[in-house]
């Protein structure tokens, strides 16, 4: 990471044409991944990205430049490029003395990935392949992936902020294809945490593989998904992404300040059923979206977004918060030093309630039970959102019956939030990547088993 003097002089250069705020973000990221396909390790891939992004803010305008050249000259050139983009007076901002703040770590990393022999990473993959194929001869293709990333970041800004973080993530994924009379079906499973190789003390690659294989095999017997409005039970962990889409994005302050969210101006109002309490928690130990600081140097925090159905606050990054004269909620994130930060979620959870999950299923005469979702998408301005189900079953007479083929569910965020009728007393999380304006960041979501009174299921059966 950069020396204090160099950070200070780079900030001075960035403010040479004036501006209200300058920031240097330094990143050094090492990653490794390996893929197992067709019965063998295809290859081990290593990546190294190191550079700095410099932004200058003047009024509502941000000038941004980045460089992989961290020499005095390279940083100076980037600072000048960012300054040129935000030129036009408004000078007088001085760079305050940089002062490092101690930041609590959400958890410790016990085995940094770069200290692990490559051979051990590769060995995990073969175990997954064996386990998946042992589930049945109908498993015709197994792809397993190992990926780790070690990201060191440093943030300094002209307000005197100086903060650093050391972020480690490890993920293991398996995709299986099962082939039967009805064609091919797939099963996918991909647990990940913001920890090192100790992930494999708790995640057994063979178990991940068996889960993916069973999912694909189950779907071979699946009937076409129904078409129309039905009650939807989301198994614990499976449905967090629904809330990520249904209201999470709509509660990001950038959409709010652009008046491009259905939740604009609704703080203090009842926006969801009273059973709904939603938090975005960047401090949750070891979770996939967990951080010590966000990419603007703010220590991570737990933010309550909806309390007992009432909208309490939005999620904020530094720029949007400054504009409103408040503090950031540590939701300023960026994919790499080459990207500008914006408001992003971390770990978004719907908190558990009191009902027995089995009773929730039993309460449904005819509906669907979602066990795994495959991601989704929302238009925050209209609130309309979708998510795909990759493992789901019919519920008939309060019992789980036939598996159904993959289908999309569609709903409107504010409508669905009001239709959360029962919330279970269990809880699980889900690991994913969230895309917004071309940037992808690791997030997790989580929820207890719950019932949504009615959603549109986009199947092909009557």
């Amino acid at each position, binding site marked *: 990471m950069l020396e204090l003097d160099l950070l200070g002089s780079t900030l001075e250069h960035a403010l040479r044409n004036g501006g209200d705020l300058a920031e240097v973000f330094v990143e050094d990221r090492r990653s490794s991944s*390996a893929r197992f*396909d067709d019965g*063998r*390790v*295809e*290859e*081990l*891939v*290593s*990546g*190294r*990205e*190191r*550079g700095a992004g410099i932004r200058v803010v003047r009024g*509502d*305008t*941000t*000038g*941004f*430049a980045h*460089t*992989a*050249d961290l020499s005095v000259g390279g940083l100076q050139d980037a600072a000048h490029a960012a300054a040129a*983009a*935000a030129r036009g007076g408004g000078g007088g901002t001085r760079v305050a003395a940089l002062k490092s703040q101690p930041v609590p770590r959400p958890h410790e990393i016990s085995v940094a990935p770069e200290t692990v022999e*490559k051979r051990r990473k590769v060995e995990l993959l073969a175990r997954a392949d064996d386990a998946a194929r042992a589930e049945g001869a109908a498993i015709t*293709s197994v*792809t397993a992936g190992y990926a780790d990333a070690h990201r060191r970041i440093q943030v300094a800004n002209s307000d005197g902020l100086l903060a650093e973080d050391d972020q480690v993530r490890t993920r293991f994924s398996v995709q299986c*294809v099962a082939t039967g009379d009805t*064609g*091919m*079906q*797939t099963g996918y499973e991909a647990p990940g945490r913001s920890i090192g190789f100790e992930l494999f003390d708790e995640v057994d690659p063979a178990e991940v593989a068996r889960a993916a294989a069973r999912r694909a095999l189950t779907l071979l017997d699946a009937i076409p*998904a129904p*078409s*129309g409005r039905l009650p939807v039970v989301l198994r614990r962990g499976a449905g967090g992404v629904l809330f990520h889409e249904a209201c999470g994005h709509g509660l990001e302050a950038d959409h709010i300040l*652009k*008046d*491009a969210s*259905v939740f604009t101006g609704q703080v203090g109002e009842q926006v969801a059923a009273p059973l709904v309490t939603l938090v975005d928690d960047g401090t949750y130990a070891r979770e996939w979206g967990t951080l010590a600081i966000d990419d603007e140097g703010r220590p991570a925090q737990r933010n309550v977004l909806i309390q007992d159905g009432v909208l309490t606050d939005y999620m904020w990054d530094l720029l949007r918060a400054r504009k409103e004269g408040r503090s950031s909620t540590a939701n300023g994130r960026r994919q790499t030093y*080459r990207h*500008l930060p914006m408001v992003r979620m971390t770990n978004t959870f719907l908190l558990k309630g009191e009902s027995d999950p089995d009773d929730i299923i039993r309460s449904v005469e005819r509906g669907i039970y979602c066990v795994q979702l*495959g*991601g*989704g*998408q929302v*238009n925050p*301005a*209209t609130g*309309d959102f*979708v998510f*795909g189900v990759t493992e789901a079953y019919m519920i008939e007479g309060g019992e789980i019956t036939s598996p159904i083929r*993959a*289908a*999309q569910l*569609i709903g409107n965020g504010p409508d669905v939030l009001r239709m959360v009728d029962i919330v279970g007393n269990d809880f699980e999380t889900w690991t994913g990547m969230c895309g917004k304006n071309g940037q992808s960041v690791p997030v997790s979501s989580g929820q207890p088993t719950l019932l949504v009174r009615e959603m*549109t299921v*986009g*199947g*092909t059966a009557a």
Partner: protein
Amino acid sequence: MSDSDLLELTRGVAGAARPGEEVEAYALRTRETDIEIFGGEVESLTTAGIEGIGIRVIVDHCQGYASAGSLDPGVVEETLQEARDNAAFGAPDEWYGLATPNDVDGAIPAPLDLWRDDVVVTPADEKVRLALDVERATKARDTRVRGVEAAGYGDAASETALANSHGVESCNRRTTCSLYSVALADDGTGTQTGYGLSAGRAIADLNQDEVVGDAVDRACRLLGATPISGRRIAVVLDPLVTRSVLGVLSSAFNGESVLKGRSLFAGREGEKVAAPVVDIVDDPTDARAFGAARYDSEGIPTRRNPLIVDGVLHGFLHNVYTGRRAGVRTTGSAVRGGYGSAPGVGVRALVLRPGDRAPETVLASVPEAFYVQSVSGLHSGTNPISGDFSIGAEGLMVRTGVFAEPVREVTIASTLQRMLLDIAEVASDLTYLPGAATGATVLISEMTLSGA
């Protein structure tokens, strides 16, 4: 560093191959401008240069790969060592190997000129003006436009070079630029959004009026949209939607998916897989396509590859590896997602052969249809291996060729296999769009719509 210096650098890496080792280096340099406008002001202006290198080493039939976001000689040397080290941990595969002059087989790359200096030399101020203008014009176009969610300009000028230890070398360079706007319309019935985009190789290709017209018309014509009841119905895909659907289908043509049992077309060559009107080609030699390129990502000249001819599956796409393993030649279809990964197989310029009739005529050919203006959840609701297809949609009902009530919050579902057979007509409005596929208005005789 000039273009030839990039090639010089990759040659240097390839030349460092030790006896028994195959080495390939791929270097990239991109200059980008990105301007976002909000509320009549420049919200952000990003000027950036990106450089990177990816190195592949094959030794004893084992492959390793490493990359770095820098062309600094010290970093490049470390990256080569890392790729060598990684090769020791891969499993052997007799078909691994880099492109040889024999794979090139004397093929001459298409004479494509995909570079326009104006993208590089135009000052940022002028680009800012274009972006400000498009936002202002979007707001002014219609009184029902209450805001502009996002508007802006972006461009990229990229150069790549590749060299390997068999002496295969190539360079590609291209420019692209685009202007876009997202209108927010409201007439008291709730907000609707509409997207407009114009893209080209040169700034002179950009058409502000088209961007504004599309953004505003698309938002305004959805005003008052509601879900409709479920039904089986003829569906008309807008060119932008067709492009996205072709993108989902594209992996089924991938030779790697076929070899590994993950293509719904595997083993079906020569069979009828689509309606007779369906003709699909991947043609990166067509300069109009945004994915056009002279060489593929392994240094092989690209070519026109027919995939479905008159509804019959013609063949698959291959890179050097999948071609050797399948016992055929590479089709010049190696692609990479940047310098960070080894080349795979993929499409660059998928085109559905346009029909003879204008979109209006096609719309009028059925008594009732659902016109799909935009879709959501394309990746969560479609599966190119099983063929399951279910996506969120908004658009308009069409009766006897006339747009009627707007519709939102519905899904349309079928399977990719069924949809190909149900394509009734492709309109004449071939539309070149950024990405690896081209759009056209398409009529599908029946899909399941789920809604209210």
